[in-house]
């Protein structure tokens, strides 16, 4: 700090001598140029990319959806291969080294014994029975996508051996194979359901938001009535109403339809409120003053503006559908064997004794939790990125 009395000193008249270019504010760097040419979706992607958890979740989900294309190939056994000598077998660990040294990936065989006092099946690991895992091998026959007969698997047990990485169930069926097959159903239930609810939500919400007045009132009250029903009993009642004579595949579509028909209310409300808010924006007034028809205003201006928000909220409601299907199937009211979903698998774990004795039957919960979390994280990231102009 200088000691001289600045207060009395006049401020010098300073003039910058640096060259002055009034147009320099209009010049932009290449990065800005790139940013300015970007469409809404590109900018959303850039924003989403910075949300690490969402990107990881998207990766996990993408991977899981890829596996459902080749579930049969990935699973070591076919969906219904039964191993009557290995009922309720616990999971086998993969090892690389035996007592003798390196052998590559292998599992130890089981010695099976029925304890006649407790009537319990006792499996003991037989350290001498080394069963190397085979890769890209011929195993159980299956119909790929239900169409082409094939028998190629990513991994199979050694000849005469077993490969139950996640154990077996009460019929001696491999849990890993069944979970991989169940993924196909569980993940697509959400997608089909959300498509139905998306269409319903946009149409009903759009009508309510655009026309307003008594139509809006009726729709809003209807939604409120619908939402005031307890969810689970309603699902149960509706799925109980599906005819028993239907084939499992029809039941599958019936269940997705029920899930979709009950889920659209939230989306419809989101659409309506967004529509009401956006209708007041200047650019909508501008289009109106140009003479644009309502259809054009909705289609060209309103829908693209909140599509990103809709996708985000749709992503957030997929987990609800997956959980709904799981809950219904767990209660035995949803999908029925031979259609296999995670919920159907969990149906086996209803009995507390079974859970205590064979805890691996609870394993289908793990992918359910994973998928629900991943969808929530992804939806969260999408929601943050949905409006890149804020």
């Amino acid at each position, binding site marked *: 700090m200088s000691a001289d009395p*600045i207060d009395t000193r006049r401020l010098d008249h300073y003039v910058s001598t640096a060259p002055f270019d009034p147009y320099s504010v209009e010049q932009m760097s290449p990065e800005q140029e790139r940013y300015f040419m970007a469409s809404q979706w590109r900018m959303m992607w850039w*924003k989403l990319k910075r949300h690490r958890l969402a990107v990881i979740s998207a990766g996990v989900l993408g991977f899981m959806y890829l596996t459902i294309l080749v579930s049969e190939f990935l699973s070591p056994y076919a969906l219904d291969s039964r191993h009557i000598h290995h009922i309720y077998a616990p999971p086998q660990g993969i090892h690389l080294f035996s007592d003798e040294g390196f052998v590559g990936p292998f599992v130890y065989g089981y010695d099976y014994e029925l304890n006649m006092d407790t009537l319990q099946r006792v499996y003991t690991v037989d350290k001498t029975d080394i069963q190397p895992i085979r890769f890209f091998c011929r195993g159980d026959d299956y119909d790929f996508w239900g169409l082409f007969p094939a028998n190629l698997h990513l991994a199979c047990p050694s000849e005469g051996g077993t490969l139950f990485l996640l154990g077996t169930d009460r019929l001696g069926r491999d849990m890993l194979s069944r979970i991989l097959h169940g993924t196909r159903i569980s993940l697509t239930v959400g997608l089909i359901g959300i498509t139905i609810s998306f269409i319903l939500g946009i149409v009903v919400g759009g009508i309510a938001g655009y026309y307003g007045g008594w139509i809006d009132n009726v729709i809003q009250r209807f939604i409120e009535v619908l939402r005031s029903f307890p969810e689970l009993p309603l699902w149960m009642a509706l799925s109980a109403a599906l005819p028993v004579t239907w084939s499992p595949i029809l039941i599958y579509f019936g269940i997705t339809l029920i899930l979709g028909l009950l889920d659209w209310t939230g989306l419809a409300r989101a659409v309506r409120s967004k529509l009401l808010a956006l209708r007041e924006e200047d650019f909508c007034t*501008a289009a109106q003053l140009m003479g644009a028809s309502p259809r054009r205003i909705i289609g060209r201006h309103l829908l693209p503006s909140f599509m990103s928000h809709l996708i985000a909220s749709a992503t957030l409601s997929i987990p609800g559908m997956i959980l709904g299907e799981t809950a219904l199937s767990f209660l035995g009211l949803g999908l029925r064997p031979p259609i296999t979903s995670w919920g159907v698998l969990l149906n086996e774990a209803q009995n507390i004794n079974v859970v205590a004795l064979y805890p691996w039957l609870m394993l289908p919960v793990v992918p359910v939790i994973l998928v629900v979390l991943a969808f929530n994280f992804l939806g969260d990231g999408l929601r943050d990125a949905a409006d890149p102009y804020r």
Partner: protein
Amino acid sequence: MTDLLNVRDLHIEFRVAEGVIRAVRGISFRVKPGGTVALVGESGSGKSVVAQAIMGILPRPAHITRGEILFADPRLPKTIDITKLNPESGKMRAIRGGNISIIFQEPMTSLSPLHTVGDQVGEAVILHRGVSKAEARGLTSEMLRLVGFPEPVRALDTYPFELSGGLRQRAMIAMALICRPSLLIADEPTTALDVTIQAQILKLIRDLQGELGMAVLMITHDLGVVANVAEEVVVMYRGEVMESGEMRDIFADPRHPYLKALLRAVPRFHMEPGERLVPIREIKSAGGKMLEATKEPWPAGADAAGPLLSVTGITKRFDTSGTGWFNRNRSSGGGVLAVDDVSFEIKRGECVGLVGESGCGKTTLSKILMRALRPDTGTVLYNDRGKIVDVLGLENDDLVAFRRKLQFIFQDPFGSLNPRMTVFDIVSEPLVIHGIGDEEHRRQLVKELMSLVGLDVRYLKRYPHSFSGGQRQRIGIARALALRPDLLICDEPVSALDVSIQAQILNLLKDLKEKLGLTYLFISHNLAVVDYIADRIMVMCKGRIVEVAPRAALFRNPVHPYTRALLSAVPDPDPDSRLDLALLGEGRASDPRSWPEPFTIDGDNHPGMIDLGDGHLVRATARPALLEMAS
């Protein structure tokens, strides 16, 4: 005695998606205790960033890379370098609000709607001075009295929505000053306010400054405000100081080309006829041949059918009673009379200015003309090449066809362009809607429109978010011109823009009017702007037109007290003609009941328009006596 605040070689950069933006590059200035420094610059010059840095409220992507902000409050034990403090620390929090306060531009959003004014204003003093609630209440009402609340004790328990914009800004100031800070940062404190209220607020800040002995750092883009309040001036451009010094030196002898250009760009009264504003960045408007070719010519004698637009007796009342589910049958009395018996004419080729403060009904009126609102009574007739059209009676296809005659330019250049469409889609949309030309023709036409408003045709593939406010406004103009309208309604087209950009747009509008033979209804709250562009001016207050006159007559001889108040409240960028703040009164200028005879409007007096000759009309009950004195 040392400086209260000393900013030295401050560098701030933003690390954002577009890359690193160096918002502030080596700013140095000082604020003396009790002094007033104005930080002047266009938007984007980094002046608000400096204020945020001093308050320690920089947004997350901003980083101070170099420099220091030394704050030497005699109430603090020693000089503090604010750049070294953690913005979240208790020490910074004690300074913020306690020793340095800020008032923001937007009084609407700066107050919480859920708390009473008393609670919000008193909060700071409870936090920083540790006084009891009862003491805080006393201090708060004292402060509210100081900032000019008519009934401070009653105001304690009001909510912000019950207050007018001016009173809200006063409450904000009270909140900032309750702890008696030694430095007040005022970030564009009057930009969102009407001119008459702006003058009052400026006066208030100056009075309080003397009373409380605090220093003021005024951040503004308005050189008129600077000339009225500042002692020292710092002119910023792109994060650098262009020129700084004592206010009188700066205005008497502007040396830097940027400051000179800024001063030339401000519209002021008494400009020579035909004198043009000189914007900092001139735009070259070119082309217009294709538009010319698509225009329907005016048949000779078509003007005999009447003026281009004639409006008679428009009245619009907004109901304030709710229309909910359960109160449908409630009788709807009261309401707000937004437009009250408004009549006027616009001749072809004219530019009519409509001036008034916010809430006077000018936007409602423009919406009625555009058929976006339906009036309660009145007629609007439009002369379409000799054929008189009843605008309010148009339906369906006729209405769509009529849209081509009349177009609109919006105030907000950010909201009026759909951010999800490219510039090409935006400008060509009206052509698509009306099915004009094939794709190739439209492409050519859009290119011509772009060069007409001086924008590079290469910008067509970009999205609106890449443009500055002025450029967006030009895109809006191009879109409005695409349909080749006869009449353009411009609703405050420059009030959201910087002075330098404002001059650019005003010149462009003037040129386009010449080139394309347009007619304008130009709405603005800024008399100086209207003076520059309009041929005839209508002054509107509380839903009524109070004075209509040709431009020169209105400024030479304003008759109505409201017009006079408006004229005297516009700050001039000249330190020798400072506002006479004492004369401006306390917000009575826009209250029709307090106007003197014969202008009073109240329950007993309903004055009509009186013709003073030469197209000069004024709303009064009798021919005003003042006129004889003036002429």
